[in-house]
């Protein structure tokens, strides 16, 4: 299979397409905040489970036991995950780890565990684990994060029979570094979003190999566009941006941040600290770090596109300040409003009109 085809297929099939020929147990990860290298270092294979396969274009499986307890305004990622969990989509996994600080993960974890407790879901299926890494600084947070690491290692040990091996971690981090270098070379690729996120469902070294085999893209031209807002697992904003120029900074949760936020320094403790103190996180503490990271990330952009989902609790508080920042810099900011979970042609057309209006 050609590299591009394999990458795009991984992006489209997502967790459904993830297998590991080595037979290592699969560990699902819901939400950013847990370095994939840690899972590798414990002898397991990480798989992103938050973003549903693109084959579930409209709703995916719908299970009545989930519909009964899922409020209509439940986060779409959480709702999709719960329906798929009830439908057995993750039965082949040994464990699913939920990164608490991810916008949807705590709810997904609580609903899944409660459904199991109530007998609404069978007790079989993957072990469910909550990873409460704090995105905070200071000695108390650091101590807490170490205890979370111990809890995670203990849980991983029960599914893989081994703890986190430091040599294996170093090897996994080397692969992460290779992947980052390969991604940097392809930053201006028109399908950069899919090529990068495909790695959520590929082993890092293999991901790097596939990326390295692609021809170098043309240098980016046209407007430098920044993307901000809540999590979207589709290249919708990229598609809009490419009609006007190129994406210079994607600061959304499925944007440029991954996998760099998980490719920290060597050693378990240093790696965890690096994730915990990453500034571009809505729950970063001190809270001012996020504003600074956002402002720095958008430096040099000629246009900024902002979109949020209907469940946004956090990012929306930053929009007027962002608007003021852009105004001060003379950068047009287009508020695209609420972006549906799977935007249709009408939404895209309305978005184009809003952009045209601001740029006119």
């Amino acid at each position, binding site marked *: 299979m050609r590299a591009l085809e394999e990458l795009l297929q991984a992006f489209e099939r997502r967790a459904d397409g993830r297998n590991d020929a080595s037979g290592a147990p699969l560990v699902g990860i819901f939400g950013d905040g847990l370095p994939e290298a840690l899972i590798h270092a414990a002898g397991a294979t990480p798989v992103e489970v938050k973003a549903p396969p693109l084959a579930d274009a409209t709703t995916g499986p719908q299970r009545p036991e989930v519909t009964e307890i899922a409020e209509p305004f439940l986060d779409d990622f959480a709702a999709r995950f719960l329906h798929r969990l009830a439908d057995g989509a993750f039965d082949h996994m040994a464990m699913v780890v939920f990164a608490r600080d991810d916008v949807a993960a705590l709810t997904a974890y609580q609903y899944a565990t409660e459904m199991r407790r109530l007998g609404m879901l069978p007790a079989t299926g993957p072990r469910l684990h*909550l990873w409460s890494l704090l995105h905070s600084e200071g000695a108390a947070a650091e101590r807490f994060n170490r205890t979370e690491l111990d809890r995670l290692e203990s849980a991983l040990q029960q599914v893989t029979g081994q703890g986190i091996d430091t040599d294996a971690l170093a090897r996994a981090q080397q692969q992460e570094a290779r992947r980052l270098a390969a991604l940097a070379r392809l930053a201006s690729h028109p399908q950069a979003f899919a090529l990068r996120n495909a790695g959520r469902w590929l082993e890092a070294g293999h991901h790097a190999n596939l990326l390295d085999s692609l021809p170098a893209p043309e240098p980016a031209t046209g407007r430098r566009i920044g993307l901000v807002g809540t999590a979207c697992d589709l290249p919708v904003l990229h598609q809009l941006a490419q009609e006007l120029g190129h994406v210079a900074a994607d600061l959304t949760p499925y944007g440029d941040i991954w996998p760099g936020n998980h490719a920290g320094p060597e050693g378990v403790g240093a790696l965890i600290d690096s994730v915990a103190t990453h500034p571009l996180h809505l729950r970063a503490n001190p809270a001012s770090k996020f504003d600074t990271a956002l402002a720095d990330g958008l430096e040099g952009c000629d246009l900024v596109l902002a979109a949020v989902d209907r469940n946004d609790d*956090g990012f929306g508080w930053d929009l007027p300040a962002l608007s003021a920042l852009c105004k001060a810099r003379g950068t047009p900011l287009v508020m695209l409003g609420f972006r549906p979970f799977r935007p249709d042609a009408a939404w895209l057309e309305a978005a184009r009109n809003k952009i045209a209006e601001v740029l006119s």
Partner: protein
Amino acid sequence: MTRAAEAAAYQKDWLKGLRQQITSGASFAFVNADTPHEIFHFMDMPMVTNQWWSAVIAAKQQAPYFFDWMEDEGFHGHLPKYSSLPLVAQLEGDPSRQPWGGLPAPALLCARQSSDEHGRIFRRWSELTGAPLHLLSAPGVADPAPNWWEMARENWEELYGTDRLDLLQAEIEELITAVEDLTGRSFDREGFAVYMDKIDRMEKMLGEVSDLIASAPKVPMGIAEQMPNVMIPQWHRGSDWALSHVKGFRDEVAERIEAGHAECPNEKIRMMWIGAGLWFDTSFYRAFEETHGATFAWSMYLPFASDGYIRADHGDPVRALAARVSAMNEQLHQPPWVNEWLVAQARKYRIDVALMLIPEHDRFSGYGSLFAKRALEQAGVKVIEIWSDMVDPRAWDREAAVAQVTAALDEMEVTA
């Protein structure tokens, strides 16, 4: 004068004093409801609670203006309202629209990251006022005990987890240092133990009131009257006035029961109000007494006083305080805590019908609602969903809500 009126009068006087203190330049803290208020009270630092101030603005019917303004300014309409109304009012910039002519800049801000918005809302407050922000962590609870209220009073170390308590205790210690620096006063640990003991005594008395109302043949005091009797002392918990008031409240309820008083003499249906108060329309609570003999016996504020606040100090009152705060809000909203507690409360209070406030755009409060609904229905309680916000009345249609509840109650009468 009833005890509730006395409480309201006390609060009014206290507010005058607080306003005077604040407007004359005294340092004050602006904090969320689920933060350790005890530190500010004990250190005699004036404090304004975000959600209380939100309810005050809403009760003065000023929320619609501010929320319209908020959307005009570029904040989107699905952002949570309860915790943000004070910020929005402050950002709007015309203090004359606010009660007291608005708040001056606080000296300290404090919020718990129990929900994603709190860090961002308080960040904006900090940016607006220059006040330092203390964000307390709120890690998830991996294995929450469903019967939390049975463990929380004594066995809280096991319930909330040593690692979580170590974390929050350390963060509270940092807060204490900050308050010491601001007030110039030292934190007296022995005195704090005495103060915490007084709070426990007060909450135990409120627990007695809850037991009295739950077991009374008919509801002796409706929730509109319960709420000020509970919440005003709760804002002043541990003070001499609060203890004295709660004792009087308990005696008043006991006397009413002894005298055979019924808030709704025609009582046929006992109801519970699930969720925060409907602050802009509190008369709604009595809308079904005459027509259906349906009266509200329960709102969370009274029973939560004992279950949510009493924490044996085990020789370490700051740690006991961490235990009180550690999952304060989560217990009221997240499964399995909320559903199991509501069922236990419904049984205790002999509840027939639950009106459940579901705020779509306040997801921390709205999530978990359908688990609670399912659990209550399985326990034989009829659940009526009220889709509204606690402080934003713009989509509130009182007539429609009354019609909805009326239809459900009519149906019960037919079935009976």
